[in-house]
């Protein structure tokens, strides 16, 4: 079965630097991959979706890459701010003909002033 691996250790970076979070999967390559942000006590919020035939997707300070050979997606936040501090989850679609997602456990990002 599909397993998703995200770094369980928190990522601590200085404000203004680029944060890079990793999502690895072990089995089949998904048709698409999504990234979500989750703040404490809140539900996840959708950020970006990238399809298997796309290498890179950008939205403002966010960039996602998708390498089906490495079975990996990287999520970058440039010019990071303390407000970017949160847990970031990656999610992959599961075959089945509908929008069923498998979520990783997430990586906590802490941006320090």
């Amino acid at each position: 079965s599909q397993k998703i691996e995200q770094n369980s250790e928190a990522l601590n970076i200085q404000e203004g630097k680029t944060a890079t979070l990793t999502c690895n999967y072990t089995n089949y390559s998904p048709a698409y991959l999504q990234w979500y942000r989750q703040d404490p006590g809140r539900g996840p919020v959708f950020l970006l979706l990238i399809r298997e035939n796309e290498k890179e997707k950008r939205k403002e300070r966010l960039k996602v890459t998708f390498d089906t050979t490495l079975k990996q997606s990287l999520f970058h936040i440039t010019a990071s701010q303390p407000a970017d501090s949160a847990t970031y989850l990656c999610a992959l679609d599961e075959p089945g003909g509908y929008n069923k997602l498998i979520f990783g456990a997430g990586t906590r990002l802490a941006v320090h002033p």
Partner: protein
Amino acid sequence: GAGVSQSPSNKVTEKGKDVELRCDPISGHTALYWYRQSLGQGLEFLIYFQGNSAPDKSGLPSDRFSAERTGGSVSTLTIQRTQQEDSAVYLCASSPLSGTGGSNQPQHFGDGTRLSIL
């Protein structure tokens, strides 16, 4: 409302009691999902509803768990004879379309119900 609404936001109950959790999806969203999130863990899929189709119940952990969706809108997740291992945050999500060729929709989440079993 503008987003997915879940109630109650917190629920504390004694082991063995039944609980009902409610989800109001975004108006017009045909797909509705329930997930469970334990502390420090990822989201565990429980059940999925899409329109009038039979729900996908493959993620329900035991027969103590059931869910229904009335009129294609509001959904309730029921846990009977609760156990301490049922303690978790139960999240509901909805999306506007689900199906082959249209399976790339983001899911919109509520803020969950934090369930604590004493």
